[in-house]
């Protein structure tokens, strides 16, 4: 099933480096040959203090405080490896809100 990696590109996440992070993620995904994963920017997930934030959708995994050194593990996960548990720090009520929003097609 194809997945989207939604990388927040709003002010806070950007100030925490989400722009180069998104470019690096794109490269690593291409290098890994994951053709069914698309990297897209997102406006805001409402978890600015915990950025940069990346949400993998529709499988619904949310990675917070992502640093460049975390990307290899995330790409491994996208290739079928284990979920990166230590980056899964977001409160479940916010997750639910954002996932519902994504389910209604708001990208």
């Amino acid at each position: 099933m194809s997945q989207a990696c939604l990388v927040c590109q709003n002010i806070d996440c950007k100030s925490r480096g989400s722009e180069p992070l998104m470019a690096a993620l794109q490269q690593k995904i291409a290098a890994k040959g994951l053709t069914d994963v698309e990297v897209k920017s997102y406006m805001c997930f409402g978890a600015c203090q915990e950025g940069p934030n990346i949400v993998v959708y529709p499988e619904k995994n949310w990675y917070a405080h992502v640093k460049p050194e975390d990307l290899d593990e995330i790409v491994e996960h996208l290739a079928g490896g284990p979920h990166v548990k230590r980056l899964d720090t977001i409160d479940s009520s916010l997750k639910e809100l954002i996932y519902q929003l994504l389910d209604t097609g708001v990208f």
Partner: protein
Amino acid sequence: MEGILFPHAVPEGREGLKEYRARGGYDALANAIKGTPQDIVRVVSEAGLRGRGGAGFPTGKKWQFTREAPETPRYLVMNGGEDEPGSKKDRVLLENLPHLVIEGVILSAFAIGANKAYLYINARYDAAIKSITDALAEAKAAAHWGDKILGSDFNLDIEIIPAPHNYVAGEDTAVLEVIEGKKPLPRQKPPFPVTVGLFGKPTSVNNVETLANVAPILLKGADWYRKFGTAESPGTMIFSLDDDVNRPGVYELPFGTPLRHLIEACGGGLKSGKPIKAIMPAAPSSAYLSPEKIDTPLDHNSMRDAGSGLGCGVVKLISEGTCIVEEVLRIADFFTAESCGQCPACRMETNALSMMMKKVQAGQGGQPILEQFGKILAFNKGKGFCNLIAMPGPPIESALKLFPADFEAHLTTGKCPAN
């Protein structure tokens, strides 16, 4: 009925010092300056004057807080940013009745013990700035402000500050930031400006119309003032009607006047000639009212009980045949564009609401998307430094409740029912 600010009719042209003096102008100042500042606060409190910038806070109380704050110096700020779309009242007062406003400023500064007042005026209001500048020169020559006002020990300096014309620049703490030479970004509250305001000192920020009421109250007394309006909202308010009615303009009406009077007798009804579909009593941030609520009295409590608000009196009408989805999409986009961006929650909320409403307009998302609006609003409730985060909620939630068919039509056919 006679008015308080516009005694006979909406004024035309600039009222000069001589004309203003001829109708008792600056008499209130001459009397008050012989008494104590507390006398002014007491009379204005007894009159029940409430702020006209939107929140309706009791003016006497705001002044009392400012007076009682231990720090000095204290400042008075006149908020004439007037960034509310469709609002014209402050411009009319500044342009046509500059001395009424200035006398109010001087009296208010005396009341709170401020020796410096800033007049914050929308930078696009060239004629208003010119009118106030000229009136200030006239008033200074007559010793109404400056050193030793009318021979008393009270000194007051007054300075005009042009206001940037984005929406949040009218928020009272953003006003303080601009006067301090910074960007118009609201501050976190508390502390409130009455204790920590301009340059960190106690500051009373009052709307132009609020200040314009001060001289008439002091000249004619609280009992006279209370003959207008209702017990909770004494006096009058200036309402702005836009081009959707036959006679757009500003109308001063006593609080408690039925909304119908403003719309029909003053505005001459809808220009479109169609029946009214919805009324927004405080555009763009209040809940829509259905046309059956047209007899609701125009006062703070009645509007709140009817499910909406009075704001700063910009009344907008929606004609039958207009699609409410298009209306609220415009409103959602307005707040997204005007969010200053410093609070993450506000950015997230306004962006999400805009995107969701665009989906609805395009007929995407089905019924579940409609349920997301309330959730996003509830999630962000109470967050953010200023009130902008709370503004898209009332129009969107009332539109969903009152006009479900419009949303349904977009979602099922992808087409606007108005076309």
